[in-house]
């Protein structure tokens, strides 16, 4: 086994960091709705891809990809709130929410295929070409943007939950919703707000996907396993968990690819997950 050069190693670490940020961004909404609202939203990935395709569409009619945030965020917020309202209306349990959202995934996938076909789509934007040079390493703007978004959103949610009245009430809902209500917390309203936020995060993650990746409807499932691993490793309902765990997984994958063959990479994330589940099963 030949040792990789320092430059290659550095570049691997960087790409691991960036893909980890995307894992974290994709996992943030999933972890929050699972941990705090007991809704396992498999459709989170389909929503992210819907966001990616919408960004692609808006960019192709001449909108700046970053400016699409102004439309993507409110649109996905409303979609998430609506979904939560429906799930709450029919009192869907955590396990059934998994089934319902799996069905929703299939519907969104079919919708995407119907509108944009199964062909590969690549968003054309000036941002993809912008690269910064740091020493002998290169950093692309879309990846940097993804990292910045993941960091900013995770930290904002963390601060909201830790330091505001509404955030503390949200944590109380996660622990014992009826008692929180007995002390005046509007459980329904706050749950709608959080669901909207989670879905908006999926939209933002979709925008980041569109910036860096070629899109195809089948890709929805490619992210599922590793992001679930990041969510569980990070601890459900913990706002910084998915990002930290995502980066740990991303970097370990990148290092595995640098030292061995790329095919070994998925092994790393799931081995990590199994080890954590064995050592600290209480985290889930």
């Amino acid at each position, binding site marked *: 086994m030949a040792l990789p050069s320092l430059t290659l190693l550095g570049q691997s670490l960087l790409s691991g960091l960036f893909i980890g940020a995307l894992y974290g961004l994709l996992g943030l909404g999933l972890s929050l709705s699972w941990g705090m609202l007991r809704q396992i939203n498999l459709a989170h990935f389909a929503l992210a891809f819907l966001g990616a395709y919408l960004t692609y569409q808006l960019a192709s009619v001449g909108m700046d990809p970053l400016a699409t945030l102004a439309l993507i965020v409110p649109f996905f917020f409303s979609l998430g709130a609506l979904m939560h309202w429906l799930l709450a209306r029919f009192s869907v349990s955590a396990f059934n929410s998994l089934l319902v959202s799996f069905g929703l995934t299939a519907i969104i996938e079919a919708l995407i295929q119907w509108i944009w076909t199964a062909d590969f789509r690549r968003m054309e934007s000036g941002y993809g070409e912008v690269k910064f040079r740091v020493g002998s390493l290169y950093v692309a703007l879309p990846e940097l943007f993804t990292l910045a978004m993941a960091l900013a959103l995770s930290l904002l949610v963390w601060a909201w939950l830790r330091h505001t009245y509404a955030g503390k*009430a949200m944590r109380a809902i996660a*622990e014992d919703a009826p008692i929180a*209500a007995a002390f*005046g917390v509007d459980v329904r309203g706050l749950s709608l707000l959080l669901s909207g936020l989670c879905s908006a995060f999926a939209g933002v993650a979709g925008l980041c996907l569109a910036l860096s990746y070629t899109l195809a409807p089948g890709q929805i499932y490619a992210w599922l396993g590793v992001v679930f691993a990041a969510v569980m490793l990070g601890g459900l309902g913990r706002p910084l968990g998915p990002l930290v765990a995502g980066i740990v997984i991303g970097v370990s994958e990148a290092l595995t690819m640098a030292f061995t063959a790329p095919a070994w990479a998925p092994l790393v994330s799931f081995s990590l997950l199994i080890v954590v589940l064995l050592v600290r099963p209480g985290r889930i």
Partner: protein
Amino acid sequence: MLEVERIRVSYGAAPAISEVSIRVGAGELACVVGPNGAGKTTLINALAGLHPIEAGALRLDGRDLSRLPRHAFCGEGIAVVPEGRRLFAGMSVRENLELGSYRRAARARRAASLERVCEVFPVLRERLEQPAGTLSGGQQQMLAIGRALMAQPRLLLLDEPSLGLAPAVVLAVFDVIREINAGGVAVLLVEQNAALALELAARAYVLEEGRIAAEGRPAELLAQAEIRRAYLG
């Protein structure tokens, strides 16, 4: 002040309590005693908004609360110390107390309420930043009472505050309940420990199989041989 008129509360198809009527006067301490499974917790939970009331009326100072959404009960001046305490275990003692004063009117007086709760329970002051789940049973009971006091209630509902506590701690908790009541807060106390509850209360109800079996002043109830035998051994 509190008038409960012939309420029925069910779990599924089976009514847990029915035709239950009780009154608590302003500043009064009333208690409900009865065997396990009689529906005491159901009653408290219904009065706290934790469980929907199917039929009957629940009036506080003449205002009917039975159709209000559950998070509105606290704003009407009702605070609960639920069975099993049900603290927010992963959150700090301070955060638990802050959530007690979540509604706006209580929020404005939060600092003063916190000071008062720490005076009543000095042990909580030392542990404000500690997760609630790491407190001992007695301390958790104090925190549950403290959290309810933070809501500035006019009516405090207490469900089995003596459960699982050492005898000395039980007496301390009951002293605090007496003190809170002396401060003008009406109290409805549900207890298995009937001797203790009847000693404290000005009005008492016996709940059996979801119905009020007897009511009156504690002295009157204690004069009835069957009640003495059933609840005081």
